[in-house]
C-alpha cells in the first residue's frame, strides 16, 4: 500500500492504494467516479481516457501510484456550470449512441483540439480520424463523432 496525493477535478485527495491498483480502478472504485469506463484489457479501446496534467491518457495503462502529485481531470470534471463545448457538440451532432465510449471520446477530443490549436495545425477530417485511432466506438461508425469534434474545434 502507498499513500498518494493528487488533485481530481480540482479536488485535493489523499488516499492509501495498493501498489497494483490501476488509475482507472482508483477513479472508478475508490473515488466512485464511474463516468470513466473500462471497455477492454489491452489498452486499445480508450473508454478509460482521462487527462493527467492536461494530457489525454488511458487510465488503464497507468498505476494509481504513478499519478501521485498529478492533476487529473475526468469526464465529470469538464463541465463548468454549462456543458463543455465538446460535450455540447456531441449532443448537437448526434455523436453518441449507447454512450459507453463517449466519455473517452470527449476527453480524447478535447486533448486533440488543444494540441492542434497549440501547434496551429488544421484539424481536418483526416486528422481527426487518424487521431482517434486509440478510441473504439461500435455504434456510430465514427461519422458523427468526427463531425462533433470538428464542430467543437470551432468553439473551443
Amino acid at each position, binding site marked *: 500500500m502507498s499513500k498518494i496525493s493528487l488533485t481530481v477535478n480540482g479536488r485535493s485527495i489523499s488516499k492509501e492504494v495498493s501498489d497494483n491498483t490501476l488509475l482507472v480502478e482508483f477513479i472508478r472504485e475508490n473515488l466512485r467516479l464511474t*463516468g470513466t469506463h473500462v471497455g477492454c484489457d489491452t489498452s486499445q479501446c480508450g473508454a478509460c481516457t482521462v487527462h493527467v496534467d492536461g494530457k489525454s491518457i488511458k487510465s488503464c495503462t497507468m498505476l494509481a501510484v504513478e499519478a501521485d502529485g498529478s492533476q487529473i481531470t475526468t469526464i465529470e470534471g469538464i463541465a463548468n456550470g454549462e456543458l463543455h463545448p465538446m460535450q455540447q457538440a456531441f449532443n448537437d451532432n448526434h455523436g453518441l449512441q449507447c454512450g459507453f465510449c463517449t466519455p473517452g471520446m470527449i476527453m480524447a477530443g478535447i486533448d486533440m483540439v488543444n494540441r492542434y490549436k497549440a501547434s496551429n495545425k488544421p484539424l481536418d477530417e483526416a486528422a481527426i480520424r487518424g487521431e482517434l485511432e486509440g478510441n473504439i466506438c461500435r455504434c456510430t461508425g465514427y461519422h458523427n463523432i468526427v463531425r462533433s469534434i470538428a464542430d467543437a474545434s470551432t468553439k473551443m
Partner: protein
Amino acid sequence: MTDGIGARVKRKEDKRYTTGSGKYTDDVRNENQAYAAFVRSPHAHANVTGIDASAAEGMPGVVAVLNGAELTGDGIGNIICGWAITSKDDTPMNMGAWSALATEKVRYVGDAVAVVIADSMEEARNAAEAVEVSYDELPAVVDTATAMDAGAAQVHENAPNNLIFDWELGDEAATDAGIAAASHVTKIDLTNNRLSPNPMEPRSAVATFDPAEEHYTLYTTSQNPHVARLVLSAFYQVAPEHKLRVIAPDVGGGFGSKIYIYPEEIVCLWASMKTKRSVKWTSTRSEAFLTDAHGRDHVTHAEMGFDADGKITAFKIDTIANLGAYMSLFSSAVPTYLYATLLAGQYHMPAIHCNVKTVYTNTTPVDAYRGAGRPEACYLIERVMEKAAREMGMDPAELRRKNFILEFPYQTPVIMNYDCGDFPGHLDKAQAAADVAGFAARKAEAASRGKLRGLGYSTYIEACGIAPSQAVGSLGAGVGLWESAEVRVNPVGTIEVLTGSHSHGQGHETSFAQVVADRFDLPVENIQIVHGDTDKVQFGMGTYGSRSGPVGLSAIFKACDKVELKVKQIAAHLLDASADDVFCEGGEVKVKGTNKSLGWHEIGLAAYTAHNLPEDMEPGLKEGAFYDPVNFSFPAGCHICEVEIDPETGVVEIVKFTAADDFGTLINPLIVEGQVHGGIGQGVGQAMLEQVIYGDDGQLLTGSYMDYTMPRADNLPSFDVEHNSVPSPSNPLGVKGCGEAGAIGSPPAIMNAITDAIGTENLEMPATPSNVWQAIQANQIKHAAE
C-alpha cells in the same frame, strides 16, 4: 409543436452520457457486495475428471467456490434454445445439454467450470486461478464445412455427426426444374465470416438475494429484461417470476449479443442465494471474446438460373451453419426463418429452395448478431447477382432492374409477403447520389495513377418488427412477439410512457417521446420514457431486429388511442361539448369551432381528483396496450460502394459510400441516420477487417483487440445517407425499422466493388490487404496461364 414525428430532435438522454453520469451495470455497487470470477476451460473439448478447490477456498477474501454439481443439485435447469426447428424428415432438432457450470464435459475454450465468490474482484480472480481442474483432453471439431465428416470429434452424444437439424424451405422440384431450364446458371461458393459482436460495454451482472422476502434483484446488461426474467424463472428455475426483478439500466450497446441469458447471470443469482451476498460479475474483454455469442459463420453453395432475357428462373441454396458448442437462445432461428425467408431479395423468383444443416463445433455458441440471418441472405443474393451480371455481360444495375418486384403485396416462394416497396426508386436515388455516370472517368483517372477503381451494388431487403405471434408460434418460436406499453398522464399533465422495448443506444427516450408529443401536440420535454425495469414496466419482449419501432411504438400508439378517448370524454364533460368535437392542439385540449380549451394539467387533475367526471367513468388517466404485429416490416434500399485499391499492397480505400434507404416513416432522421452509419461501420468491419479465427485445436486466436480488427475511425469514410421512404401499411405509424439495414446492405456492396476493381470473383470476407493482394496475384497467374 416542432418536435414531433420527422423532426431532427437532439437526444434527451445525451446529457447523462456526455457528463459521465450514465448508470451502467458495472457502476452498481451494493452494500455487502462480493465479486464472482469464473474458472474457465482452457481446452476446446475435454472430460472434467476432478475439481480441487481446497487451495482456493483458503485464500484471502474467498467466500465460496461453487461448481456445476452443486448448481444442478440445487435444481438449476439447463440453458435452452427457445425456437424449436424440425428437420425435413420431421424429427426434432438435436439439442445438447448446456449447464451454466459444466459438470462432466467442457465443449469450448471459455466454458465455465466453477465460480469463486470473494470480497474483492482481485481476490476472486486470484482464487479462480488456484482452482485445480483436471481434464482428460479430447479431439476438437472446429471447422464448419467439415464438422459432419466421418471421424470428426462428437460434441454432443445426442447429435450424431454433429448435425443439429437438416431443414429445408421452398419447392425443391420446381427449383431444380427452373435451374435445368435456365439458359445461364451462376454458381457460387461463399463463406460468411464468423464475427464477434463487441458492444463496447462488456457484459455484467449484479445479483442480490433478499432472504427475508426470498426475492432476487438482478442488474444486467440485457436488451430484454422481461425475457430474461421469464427465461431465468420458467426454464432455469433460478427464482419464481414474481420473486425476481430484472433491471437493465444504461446498456452500452448490444447488437444481439445481449439478448440471450448467459451462464454468468444464472450463476450470479444462484450464488447470491448460496452466499447471502450481493454478487457482481463484469466480463473482461478477453472473456467477452470467449463467451459472448458470436455471429454469422455460414458456408454456402448456391446456384441461380436465368432465362435468355436475364430473368431469374430459380435459386437453389445449400448452407451449413455453425452454431458452436451449445444452442444459444435464438440460435436455431437465425440460419432458418431469419435467413431463408429473405432469399428472394428484391427480385421476382419463380422458385427457391434452401437446405440448411446446422452443426455443433467446439467453439463459442453462435446466435443473432446485428442483422441475424438477413446479412447472410443479402450477401449471398447480391454477390450472385453481381457475378451473374458479369458472366452474362450485363450491367449489374440493369440485371437487378429487370428482376425487381414491382407490385405489392408480393408473396415470395419463401413465406414472406412484402407489403410495399419502391426498389427502382431506391436504385435511381442511390445511382444519382453516387454519380455512377461519372464512374468511368474516375476509374480512368485512378488507373493513370496506377490504382484500381471498382463500383459495387447491393439492393437489399430485410425483415424487421418480429413478428405476428401466431405465425412465429406455428414455426416453432417458444414465445409470442408482441409488445406492450402503458401511457400514464400525471395529475400535472405530464406523461410517462412505460415500454417493454429497451434502449441501449437507439435513442428511444427521444424518438418515442416524439411520437407521443406528435400525437397530443405537446412539447417533447413533457414526456418521459420509462424502460428497462421489470418492476416498473408491466411486460415486454425487448429490443432486437428493429422491433422497437414497428412493434413497440405501435403498442404506445395503441395505448395513446385509449388515452385520447378518455381525455376527450373528460374535456367534453367539463366543457359541455361533444367528445367528437374535442381535439389536441398547441399543448391544450380544445373544442372545435369554439374558444373553449383546457390544459393537460386541468384534464389530469380532473381525472385524479375525480370530483367531476362523467357518470360511470373510472378515476385516473393511464392506459395500457399490447400490440401484436400483423406482418413483418420490410426495410429496403440500395447501397453503392466505390473503392480504390493499390494493387502493389492490396490496401482498399472506400472512396465513396452511398446508401438510399426506405425505412418507411422516419420518426427522427438524425437518429435514423446514426443507426445507418453504425450499421455500415459494422458492415465494413465484416467485409474488410473482422474475423473470429480458431486454431485446429479450438483455441481462439482472435481473443483481444490486438488480434481482432475492430473498425477504427481511419478505416471508415463518411457516408452519404439518402432516404426514399415508403410508409409501411402494416403498422399504424408506417415505420419499418433501421437498426440492421446498414450491416445487411453494405458487405456485398463493398465486396462487389472490390471484385469489380480487381477483376476476379475469388475473394472472401474479410478483404484484408493480404487477402486482396493474394486474389490479385492469383488472378494474374491464372490469366498468364491462359
